């Protein structure tokens, strides 16, 4: 049985619902032989700031039970280098690109977007207002509904392209922040970013990470991510969601779709398997074929509550 994989995130049509997540796939070109970006529904870039960032001191990562904590601190080459070096190649390959946007101040989000507006071949913006690993910017916008609505409105006004807001699972009130983003004009919500967490070196009596705390990702957080996607989906039924958190297999992707996501991102799994997003896609198609699902999109929000 052949399975239709097409989906849409709001107005944006995608060939399939599987994306590579921000910060886990570089700028889309590092793993081409394992996972050609053009074969995915979309690739999300590492968070881009107006100017290059060096990120945090090391150690920046530590493994935990079925997960990992990272405190990269948004090291990135800056929007200019991205537009000059990576974007043309991605465009050339025909990849669908979502730019993950980060700024320490609201204006910086706009700076990044304004630079991108001069370029073709960008399908959407994903506002990262949920990075737990930076001192300025990041979560502060994601935790405060009023701030978030303002930021989203500003960004929304700066482009015709879809604007996604990536929500923080650490926000005091997830649904309130989701509402704020939607009120500000977000076309879709991506959730979840990493959960604030800490690992301790018992012998050294110090945190393992140079920065102390970081963000937890991987299979460990999937049950929390699924719950949050479902929670936002039920609170805001019409709002397109992009689900993410611990996706390792096609079955995981199905679970996020059922919970209400229109598309699914694969992050940490890429570190275990550089071809993970493509594998997840083929496992997803296989699952659908096995279970008589003709259209992947028919799974979206299909969860039956007990």
């Amino acid at each position, binding site marked *: 049985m052949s399975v239709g994989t097409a989906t849409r995130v709001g107005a944006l049509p995608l060939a399939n619902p599987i994306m590579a997540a921000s910060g886990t796939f570089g700028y889309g070109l590092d793993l081409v032989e394992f996972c050609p970006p053009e074969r995915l529904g979309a690739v999300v870039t590492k968070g881009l700031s107006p100017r290059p960032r060096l990120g945090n001191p*090391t150690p920046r990562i530590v493994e935990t039970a079925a997960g990992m904590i990272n405190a990269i601190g948004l090291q990135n080459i800056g929007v200019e280098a991205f537009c000059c070096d990576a974007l043309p190649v991605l465009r050339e390959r025909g990849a669908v690109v979502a730019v993950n946007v980060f700024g320490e101040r609201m204006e910086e989000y706009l700076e990044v977007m304004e630079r991108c507006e001069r370029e073709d071949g960008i399908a959407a913006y994903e506002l990262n207002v949920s990075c737990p690993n930076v001192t300025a910017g990041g979560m502060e916008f994601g935790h405060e509904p009023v701030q978030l609505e303002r930021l989203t409105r500003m960004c929304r006004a700066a482009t015709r392209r879809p604007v996604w807001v990536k929500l923080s699972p650490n926000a005091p009130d997830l649904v309130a922040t989701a509402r704020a983003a939607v009120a500000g004009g977000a076309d879709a919500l991506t959730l979840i970013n990493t959960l604030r967490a800490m690992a301790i070196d018992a012998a050294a009596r110090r945190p393992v990470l140079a920065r102390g705390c970081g963000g937890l990702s*991987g299979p460990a957080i999937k049950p929390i991510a699924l719950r949050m996607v479902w929670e936002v989906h039920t609170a805001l039924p019409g709002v397109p969601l992009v689900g993410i958190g611990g996706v390792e297999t096609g079955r995981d992707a199905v679970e996020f779709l059922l919970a209400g996501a229109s598309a699914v991102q694969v992050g*940490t799994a890429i570190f275990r398997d550089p071809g993970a997003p493509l594998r997840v896609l083929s496992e997803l198609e296989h699952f659908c074929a096995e279970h008589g699902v003709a259209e992947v999109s028919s799974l979206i929000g299909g969860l039956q509550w007990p």
Partner: protein
Amino acid sequence: MIPRRDLPVRVAARAELSPTCFRLTLSTPEVIDAAPGQFGMLACGGTFDPLLRRAFSLAGVVRRGGLSEVELLIKEVGRGTTQLRHIAVGAELRLLAPLGKGFTLEAGDRPLALVAGGIGLPPVLFAAEVLAARGAAFDLFVGAVSRPELLEVERCGRAAASVGGELVLATDDGSRGEGGFVTDAVERRLEAGQSYARALTCGPNPMLAAMAKVGRRRGVEVELSLEEAMACGVGVCLGCVVELSDGRVVPSCKEGPVFTAERLAARWWS
């Protein structure tokens, strides 16, 4: 140069080398063309425990009976390496390799100094055996905390001897070879007028820093193989970065793991 791939490998053999270290021989039909100093990311098993792959320098790659055999020398230090120590011969694993940039083996007419500390031996041994096969001259310096932790001594001796080079052993406690740090043993040779085209070094960070300083004092170029915690091994997580002398911060899995000392930020060599 054959590109990196995610190779399905079979555990062909496992051998104890010391109270803490063992050799893993992984075989695959694929042809692997790797350079000393390059590494692989090994998936210790299909499960989520451990979640991430583990980075291991390639200690050797030989083609035998239609199969490529990849050698790893591994020290048991935690979850993943403990599982590997008890893995069944015949088990199927995945090895993402070869990764990163290796040592510079070209040396002109002067010999190379190959310097290994503890479990830093694998890439240095690989270099020694490749150079021996090419008939290129080198002296091999191998250090460890004490006698039982000196690994593959015979192989090291054979490789060095085959090109008329010296194998210098050193143990911190003097239980075998020269006493004290292996980097001091190198410096003594330099002091005595011995000249090297380059020193290729792998070992614990303090030893790498010591070697860089020796090189600086004695005017010998030093290449260091670094060990940063890695999640992906392919440049996308930015977990393994090192700071360079020009201020850039680069992933050591991609730009390294081997760097010339001067390329690294000053704390490494000054």
